[in-house]
């Protein structure tokens, strides 16, 4: 405080005792009073003077009232325990509220986790469905292409019959001579044993000259069992043999699955 005298003369302490100051100012004065004993003394003297003045305004000294007042105080339930009881109840309520809140939060957390899991699941499901749609679309495109190819005017259908090695087997070759493409429908061929692959041969009959025109790779993965192979040969017959993976130079005739000759037109 730079000037205690100035502070005194401002008249703020009188207003402080009256209770006429706004809260912020009142708190400020309380703070200042703690620091300066001379200001505290001043406040006490102001208070004394005011007590004297209002005491003089009392019609009489009300000391007798104290007797009935004390009776009333005793009649009332004990104040201090009542206070602590209140405190306890509010503390219990507070705890209860906290616990309920906590349980609520846990439940919400749980529900939220569950929802998140459901959401992830559904997102996965959606992704799967989208993949399926794409696959189906690709599939249908392929089928359409195939259909168009097989309906082509230039195509020649050659049935390939099962041979001694596999009498039940059957296949069809669709040969587009103009485009040098042959489609092999292998629907009635059994899946090749592990480590083996079907090899397609174009044959000249006189003399018998086989030429490899391709392997039916990924037999299991091709759900329609329709394979496309290049064929630039002037084929007279088509044969399919079972060969070790990777194919062979010449056909293993003992393992000839199907065979069919091109109809001479």
């Amino acid at each position, binding site marked *: 405080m730079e000037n205690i005298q100035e502070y005194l003369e401002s008249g703020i302490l009188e207003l402080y005792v009256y209770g006429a100051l706004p809260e912020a100012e009142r*708190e400020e004065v309380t703070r200042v009073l703690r620091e300066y004993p001379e200001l505290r003394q001043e406040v006490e003297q102001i208070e004394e003077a005011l007590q004297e003045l209002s005491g003089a305004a009392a019609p009489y000294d009300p000391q007798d009232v104290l007797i009935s007042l*004390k009776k009333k105080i005793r009649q009332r339930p004990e104040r201090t325990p009542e206070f602590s009881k209140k405190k306890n109840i509010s503390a219990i309520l507070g705890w209860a509220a906290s616990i309920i809140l906590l349980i609520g939060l846990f439940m919400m957390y749980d529900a939220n986790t569950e929802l998140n899991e459901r959401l992830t699941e559904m997102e996965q499901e959606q992704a799967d469905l989208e993949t399926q749609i794409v696959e189906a679309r690709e599939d249908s495109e392929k089928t359409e292409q195939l259909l168009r190819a097989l309906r082509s005017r230039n195509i020649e259908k050659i049935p390939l019959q099962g041979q001694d090695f596999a009498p039940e087997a059957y296949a069809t070759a669709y040969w587009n001579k103009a485009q040098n493409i042959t489609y092999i429908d292998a629907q009635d061929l059994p899946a090749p044993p592990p480590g083996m692959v079907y090899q397609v041969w174009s044959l000249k009959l006189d003399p018998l000259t086989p030429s490899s025109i391709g392997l039916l790779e990924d037999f299991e993965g091709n759900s329609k069992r329709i394979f496309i192979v290049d064929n630039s040969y002037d084929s007279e017959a088509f044969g399919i043999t079972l060969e070790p993976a990777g194919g062979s130079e010449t056909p293993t005739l003992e393992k000839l699955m199907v065979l069919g000759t091109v109809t001479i037109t």
Partner: protein
Amino acid sequence: MQQDFLINQLQEGNEKAFEKIYQLYSKSIFGVIFTILKDEELAEEVLQDVFLKVWEKAPTYEASKGRFFTWILNIARNASIDQLRSKTYKDRQKNVEDETFVDVIESPHQLTDSTEAIGLQKYIKLLEPLCRSIIDLLFFKGYTQQESAKVLEMPLGTLKTRNRMCIKKLRASIR
């Protein structure tokens, strides 16, 4: 003097402390209540209510918020004003709201049976009319500094310094 220990004991629920507090503050508080109500019987009832509140609410008093005397003063002024607005009061009293503490001794009824009023008369004679108005508003009626400045039509700074001069005079006469 602020009896910190006494207040502490009162807050703990000590009846002896309450007795002592009553002895210290009851007369001046009674004076404030009576100045507002101008009715001995009612003022005594309100005084009882005020000190019951002091007993019950003592734990809520905080020294950081002001003097203990100011705290009781506020309770007393509020209780008196509540009483003033009550039906009981309106039924038995004439309109006294515009009067100041000066009227306490000016009322003929009070002059005849109150010996204490002579003491008050001493102070009233001592104070000039403006001082009486200022003290009446700020102290007895519990107006805020802004409200008082507005009623008296003077700047806040002037109100503060004038009030200080009035209280100084009062203090000088008590010494």
